[in-house]
């Protein structure tokens, strides 16, 4: 079914159209959400919420963007909501300080394994995902959409509703921050 027809059918609450939508986009949505929240069960929940939101809001879909762009936007928004909620909860939790001697944030333990990573890179990728988690939100999203989801800079710009040059800037800054974070981590390991 062509996208235009699919959208019309979705707006008419056609059940077969909704099923087709889910089957077409479920992998993209799940992969994006998983890579951002780095938790399997939460990713499943949020992925479901993305499609529920699509179902609820399809009337609001303006055909000035593609359906996939709109869905990526919902997926990144929902993921960020969860990430921010967890950060807020952590701030209020009574946990052992993770701050090192110089009040710098030390590297958190690597516990997330992305199932799509090539076997020989798994350990290194785990360290990378920890470093990605520490990036500011926009850098995290841009880096994930480009390097994990495989979107082009243009597609990423559309999904994030920013310009292509803004994406380039975010990627540049994210790589710089990742290098800094990884350097700290590997230097600590070597001590």
């Amino acid at each position, binding site marked *: 079914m062509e996208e235009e027809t699919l959208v019309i059918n979705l707006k008419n609450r056609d*059940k*077969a159209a*909704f*099923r087709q939508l*889910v*089957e077409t986009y*479920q*992998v*993209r949505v*799940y*992969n994006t959400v*998983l*890579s951002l929240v780095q938790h399997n069960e939460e*990713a*499943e929940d949020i*992925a*479901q919420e993305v*499609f*529920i939101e699509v*179902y609820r809001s399809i009337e609001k879909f303006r055909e000035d963007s593609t359906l996939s762009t709109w869905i990526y936007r919902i997926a990144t928004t929902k993921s960020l909501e969860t990430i921010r909620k967890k950060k807020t909860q952590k701030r209020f939790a009574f946990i052992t300080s993770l701050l090192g001697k110089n009040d710098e944030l030390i590297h958190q333990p690597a516990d997330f394994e*992305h*199932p*799509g*990573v*090539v076997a020989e*890179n798994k350990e*290194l*990728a785990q*360290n*990378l995902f920890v*470093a990605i988690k520490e990036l500011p939100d926009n850098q995290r999203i841009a880096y994930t959409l480009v*390097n*994990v*989801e*495989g979107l082009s800079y243009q597609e990423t710009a559309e999904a994030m509703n920013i310009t292509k040059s803004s994406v380039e800037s975010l990627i540049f800054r994210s*790589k710089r921050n*990742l*290098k800094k974070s*990884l*350097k700290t981590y*590997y*230097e600590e390991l*070597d001590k």
Partner: protein
Amino acid sequence: MKDIDKQIAETLNSLDGINRAEPKPFFFTRLEARMENEMGVSTHVTNKLKMALLAPILACSLLLSVASVYTVLNYNSQDSSLSSKQAFIQEYGLNKSVGSIIY
């Protein structure tokens, strides 16, 4: 001691060749169940089939009701004609067979 810059570069390249993660099987089934639960929305395709069957079933029920009403009314009117016949026979003191012929 491994060259740290080399380690960093390898780490940054560790996502090369990455495949998309897939949700567990039957994702749509679970989504559907959640939507029915939370929103009372059925996304099942056979809902269409149910609606398609409902119309003729309703039509049949209506026809049956109309037929029943007609039958009852018809029976009642026969009933009343029968009792008129009996009354006629009684009034004129006719026997049943003569009364039937005349009436």
